[in-house]
């Protein structure tokens, strides 16, 4: 993981005057009262605004919450809970249904997937379109070593590390999700605004729900794990004959040294991207058209994958639509609209993002794009081409 440590040092390095602490406590008192009187945390699917304090936390949780405007340190208990959740996603055997809902620019989309995971083994997912009966073929995870299982609401060991680096993680008490008692953990920004909220199963610590908020406190994504069953029941319910071979022989994640070596070989490997995204993983595979490099960037909540491949975009791109982002002509995949691609200077860039639109646009803006040639450059290139056309020996 390659994450800057400036956030951590800044959080721990600032002193506080008694006057400031008194003022902060006075300001936080109404928040504590509201917290004590509020109802239990809900699990609805409609977008809603975040509140400064989580609803329904226990009194012990309130004692761990810092004032909304003065959060500086993450809660040890909260970090421990998230670590347990990441381990539970690997070590537990479970099955259930994950409902992923995303909102962007006033419109939303929902994705429903059935998930089976065997302890220490692979994960099987079968996705249906918006919960309809049009089920697709199951997908067998290529995660042979169980280090990055899918279908755990984005709670993985690397992302938790980034979450701790970029946000203040606090324990927010108990709640309920999928009719199960859950421990609630929140991630807050430097200004104290709510960035994400996690519901972790009280008994197993498996993630049951996650909500992500934008800077204006609106929900931009909600992942819910429902109908969860544990232990050997999950193993017995894996669909027979369904799982397919894992696609794409992606190599194991590249080390920092390997990524730096790629940089010297002409690949673009920025250490960070706009939105506070840090490079935390990279992988490589070989296709029929050449080597593909995958670079993963995240702040613990938003994740952007940048795929690079030497070459040029095909003249005709089926399933892609031409659009303009930040003044640059790119192509967006239909219908999910979350995959963007373009080519520049002999390299094809494809960006897949689970991030706010503003972050995605900023990422596209900082990556290379071809600028239209000047008049003389275009004329020169044209004369060369004309000469090559009439050259009988060319």
């Amino acid at each position, binding site marked *: 993981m390659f994450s800057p440590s400036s956030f951590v040092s800044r959080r721990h390095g600032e002193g506080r005057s008694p006057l400031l602490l008194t003022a902060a406590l006075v300001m936080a008192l109404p928040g504590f009262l509201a917290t004590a009187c509020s109802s239990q945390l809900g699990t609805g699917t409609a977008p809603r605004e975040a509140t400064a304090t989580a609803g329904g936390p226990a009194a012990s949780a309130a004692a761990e919450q810092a004032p909304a405007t003065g959060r500086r340190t993450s809660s040890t208990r909260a970090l421990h809970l998230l670590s347990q959740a990441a381990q539970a996603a690997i070590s537990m055997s479970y099955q259930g249904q*994950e409902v992923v809902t995303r909102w962007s620019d006033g*419109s939303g*989309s929902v*994705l429903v*997937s059935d*998930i089976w995971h065997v302890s220490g083994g692979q994960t099987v*997912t*079968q*996705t249906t*379109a*918006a919960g*309809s009966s049009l089920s*697709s*073929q199951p*997908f*067998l995870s*290529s995660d042979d070593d169980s280090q*990055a299982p*899918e*279908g*755990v*609401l984005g*709670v*993985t060991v690397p*992302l938790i590390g980034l979450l701790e680096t970029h946000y203040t993680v606090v324990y927010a008490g108990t709640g309920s999700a999928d009719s199960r008692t859950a421990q609630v953990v929140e991630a807050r920004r430097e200004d104290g605004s709510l960035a994400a909220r996690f519901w972790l199963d009280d008994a197993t610590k498996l993630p049951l729900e996650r909500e992500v908020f934008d800077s204006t406190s609106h929900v931009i994504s909600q992942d819910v794990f429902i109908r969860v069953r544990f232990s050997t029941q999950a193993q017995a319910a894996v669909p027979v004959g369904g799982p397919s071979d894992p*696609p*794409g022989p992606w190599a194991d994640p590249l080390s920092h040294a390997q990524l730096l070596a790629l940089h010297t070989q002409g690949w673009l490997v920025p250490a960070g991207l706009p939105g506070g995204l840090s490079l935390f993983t990279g992988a490589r*595979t070989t*296709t029929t*058209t*050449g080597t593909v490099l*995958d670079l*993963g960037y995240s702040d613990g909540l938003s*994740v952007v*994958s940048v795929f690079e491949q*030497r*070459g*040029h*975009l*095909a003249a005709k791109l*089926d399933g892609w639509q031409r659009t303009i982002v930040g003044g640059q002509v790119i192509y967006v*995949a*239909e*219908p*999910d609209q979350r*995959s963007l691609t373009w080519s520049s200077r*002999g390299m*094809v860039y*494809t960006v*897949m993002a*689970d991030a706010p639109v503003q972050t995605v646009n900023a990422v596209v803006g900082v990556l290379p794009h071809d600028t239209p*040639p000047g*008049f003389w450059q*275009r*004329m020169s*290139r*044209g*004369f060369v*081409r*004309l000469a090559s056309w009439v050259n009988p020996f060319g």
Partner: protein
Amino acid sequence: MSHLGDRLSALVDGELDGAERDRAHAHLASCEQCRTEAAELRILKQKLSTLMTGAPAEAAMTKRLIAMTGPGGPMPSRRGATRVSRRPGTRGLRGARSAGRRRYLMLGTVSLVVGLGAAAFSAGGGGEAAPGPRITPPVEMYSVEHAITTGQVPFAPPAVSPAASSPVASASAASLP
């Protein structure tokens, strides 16, 4: 009765002397045929005279027009224009023809340059034709890798990756009301 014959044209041209002319006039008075021929000859002579008197005026006008289109076209050089106007004879006409040829040569050259420039500008568009494969990004493969990175469920849009040919679970994102 014998007719005037060749003497008729001599009469019309005024080439007969007194006795000959009197006898010819006496014959015309009594001969309808010779009178008609004499009238036709006079009309023909008048038309030819008209043509002969109009030709020099048109030739002069042609020379003046050629002189106006001297070397340099719309902005003739002082030297060339002076020579043509001062010497409207054979040498002036030759110079005007040479200037016309230069003008056409210049027009041809300009047309060639403009045409080549337009063709080069058109051919120079469309980006660099650098070597390398033409790629259609494999969305489904990227989606799976991205899902592993995010710790989320892998899926790919069905429009890009038909489920029948893909090992990846295909899904679509349905719009919410």
